[in-house]
């Protein structure tokens, strides 16, 4: 009995204290939530799966509460993603171990409370105590963010750098400044939504931004919510880009050029979004400027990363002078690292460029369609962006988890190829009215739906395989988890 308890305690320590364990738990919970919630919409309804699940689990899906449920769901998944990013930040940036432990513990309790009680309140029972606990979870995550911002304070002498190959101002590490700015911007933007959210039930009503997009007049609280959801997703993407930079050892000229852009761009976008309430007419212009600056910073990261992958790949092959083909081979040698950068490039084709096109042609094309058609474009737009963020996190985690050899190749390429197929098909689905009429859309819709389903299905099955492998690993006394627990203590105590 004592031995069982010790075995369980060991796993608990790994899953809830080691960075790789914490990330694994969060990914597993997101996967389970996504898989479960996926049974409640779309073709699952048509196939009768939804009814079976609703009955089996005793779900309460009141039609009038659908929008509120979805808002709870988005928040639970987003908080788990934020927790993953926090773990990776506290893992990869120097800080005191006490700070790391406190931040990780706070954000873990926060997102678990949010996820468990948010979903429970939204989908199972209307117990307001659960809603309260959901809010406690969100508050704890906010508090973890405050602690993170304090821990990241870049002007502390301990974190000054002397390596002149890295972006710096004086001795201040500009990469750390970028992380700090992102953290502070996130806190302000969370409060931006929180203030509006505090009026729910007190004169302010649940709504989805895509449903009010054509209302000629929007209330300040609606504008705050619309700004909040856009900036939070943007900042999640900024944080991830910075983490990918850490992962790839971003340095040199490109990093020196990139970090100021990330810092300035993040500040401009955030101020632009906050300006949405008092200065709506100019807010979009400010946001466009900030987005362009951040995208330029990300472009420099991609240029650096591609060059590094080519150099590393050729060095591994022992090639000094290489043809274009060899360089291309070296670039795609490691699908996990290549994939993270490629997804950033691909994002422009399926998110940024279509978004710019939509803004430019709003009156001529998209506003001419019925609202429900424009709504598809809006929701598809940010679903793709969220999906791309998720795939980059998966690629990063797969590297952390130590996938090697053909498994690494298979995992990486399935994620890249099939997710991009799904995202590309989703884009066609969103803007299909540009090519086909409602009357003639049947063949196109059926084709892209199959491609989307096959693409997303392959990605989810691959993710499931990774999770099952890690679950099986936990049963072994000397599995990877044991090694990762040791890595944690060896690596992070020294930070």
């Amino acid at each position, binding site marked *: 009995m004592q031995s069982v308890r010790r075995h369980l305690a060991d796993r608990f320590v790994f899953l809830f204290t080691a960075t790789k364990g914490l990330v694994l738990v969060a990914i597993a919970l997101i996967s389970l939530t996504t898989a479960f919630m996926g049974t409640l919409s779309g073709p699952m309804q048509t196939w009768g799966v939804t009814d079976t699940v609703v009955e089996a689990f005793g779900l309460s899906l009141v039609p009038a509460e659908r929008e509120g449920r979805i808002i709870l769901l988005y928040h639970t998944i987003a908080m788990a993603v934020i927790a993953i990013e926090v773990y990776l930040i506290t893992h990869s940036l120097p800080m005191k171990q006490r700070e790391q432990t406190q931040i990780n513990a706070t954000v873990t309790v926060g997102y678990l409370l949010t996820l468990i009680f948010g979903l429970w309140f939204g989908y199972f029972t209307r117990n307001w105590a659960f809603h309260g606990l959901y809010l406690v979870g969100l508050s704890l995550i906010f508090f973890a963010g405050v602690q993170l911002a304090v821990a990241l304070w870049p002007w502390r002498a301990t974190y000054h750098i002397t390596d002149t190959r890295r972006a710096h101002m004086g001795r201040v590490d500009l990469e750390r400044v970028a992380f700090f700015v992102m953290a502070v911007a996130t806190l302000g933007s969370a409060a931006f939504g929180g203030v509006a959210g505090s009026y729910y039930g007190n004169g302010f009503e649940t709504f989805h931004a895509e449903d009010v997009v054509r209302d*000629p007049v929007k209330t300040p609280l609606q504008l705050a919510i619309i700004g909040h959801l856009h900036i939070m997703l943007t900042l999640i993407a900024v944080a991830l880009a910075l983490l990918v930079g850490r992962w790839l050892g971003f340095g040199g000229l490109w990093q020196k050029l990139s970090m100021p852009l990330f810092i300035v761009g993040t500040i401009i976008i955030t101020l632009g979004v906050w300006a949405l309430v008092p200065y709506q007419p100019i807010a979009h212009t400010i946001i466009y400027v900030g987005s362009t600056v951040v995208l330029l910073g990300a472009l420099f990261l991609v240029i650096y990363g591609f060059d590094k992958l080519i150099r590393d790949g050729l060095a591994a092959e022992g090639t000094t002078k290489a043809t274009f083909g060899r360089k291309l081979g070296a670039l795609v040698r490691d699908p996990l690292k290549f994939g993270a950068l490629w997804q950033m490039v691909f994002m422009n084709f399926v998110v940024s460029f279509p978004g710019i096109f939509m803004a430019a042609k709003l009156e001529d094309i998209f506003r001419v369609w*019925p609202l429900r058609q424009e709504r598809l474009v809006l929701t598809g737009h940010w679903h793709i962006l969220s999906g791309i963020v998720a795939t980059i996190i998966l690629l990063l985690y797969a590297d952390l988890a130590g996938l090697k050899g053909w498994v690494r190749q298979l995992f990486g390429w399935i994620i890249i190829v099939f997710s991009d197929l799904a995202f590309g098909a989703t884009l066609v689905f969103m803007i299909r009215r540009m090519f086909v009429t*409602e009357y003639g859309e*049947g063949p196109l819709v*059926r084709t892209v739906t199959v491609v989307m389903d096959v693409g997303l299905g392959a990605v989810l099955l691959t993710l499931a395989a990774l999770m099952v492998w890690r679950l099986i690993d936990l049963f072994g006394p000397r599995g990877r988890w044991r090694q990762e627990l040791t890595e944690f203590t060896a690596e992070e105590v020294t930070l």
Partner: protein
Amino acid sequence: MRWPAITALLALTLVACAAPGSASTEVPVYDTGIDAEAWARVPAGGFYQGQHDHAATIGADYEIMVTNVTNAQYAAFLNAALAAGKVTLTDDTVTGYYPGDPFRAYKHEVEIPAGEWALMPTEDPALRLTLDGTTFSAKPGYEDHPATMVSWFGAWAYCSFYDWRLPTDAEWEKAARGTDTRPYPWGDDIGAGHANFVDSRDPFEGRSETTPVGFYNGKTYDGYATLDAASPYGVYDLAGNVWEWTGDVRAGTHLRGLRGGSFANYAYNLRIWTVNNAEPQHSSPRVGFRCARDG
């Protein structure tokens, strides 16, 4: 060898999926037993409006059509209006006069000035009417299906021609909901037999897609059992089949309201308060209308 085979298989699957599924022109014909000429009376008074159940009031009794305007009815209107000189037939469009909207130059607002506007195209493959010289008639089998491909101007012209009007959003919503807070005209839940939507599995799927007006009234058609989906005032098809134009002209926008969801939507779009809108010029095989008149 293996990859080309897998690619070919995948391509074959996609081609199979892409094969047109609505090629059949054989539309089943059923007598629903619901009179498309009937009107339902809705009393003045309070009701709950919108998703958040705001208390609202309609000041006077009114009547609303029990079903959508059908293709046969719309063809009869076009013939009568053409004879009366109220509408004009151009190369590929029927046009009619509309007196214009007040224009306030709000952001995204497009001016709708007085003038001739398209009521309906005459050459579109989605049209369920035929035009023989200057005479319109419903395509065989589609007589009792809702008139579609009618713009807001076309719906407005139809109702105006008979001295009726399009229902306001509030009138449409009260007719659908009665005086309680139900999400669907018939009650709290939705199932396959309630309405024509994505999951209805009705005998018209892959054929006409629309069902005859009043189809969901509790009758069974060739083994397909429907439930009586009338609203508390006995109005049919207020959820599903086709979106319905409403008559409000709102300040600051030229867009017109569409309510009720269509055969192409999932259930959540059929909730009574779901909003949709489009330019008044918009015509679609998924959009129809019904009229209202003072009670």
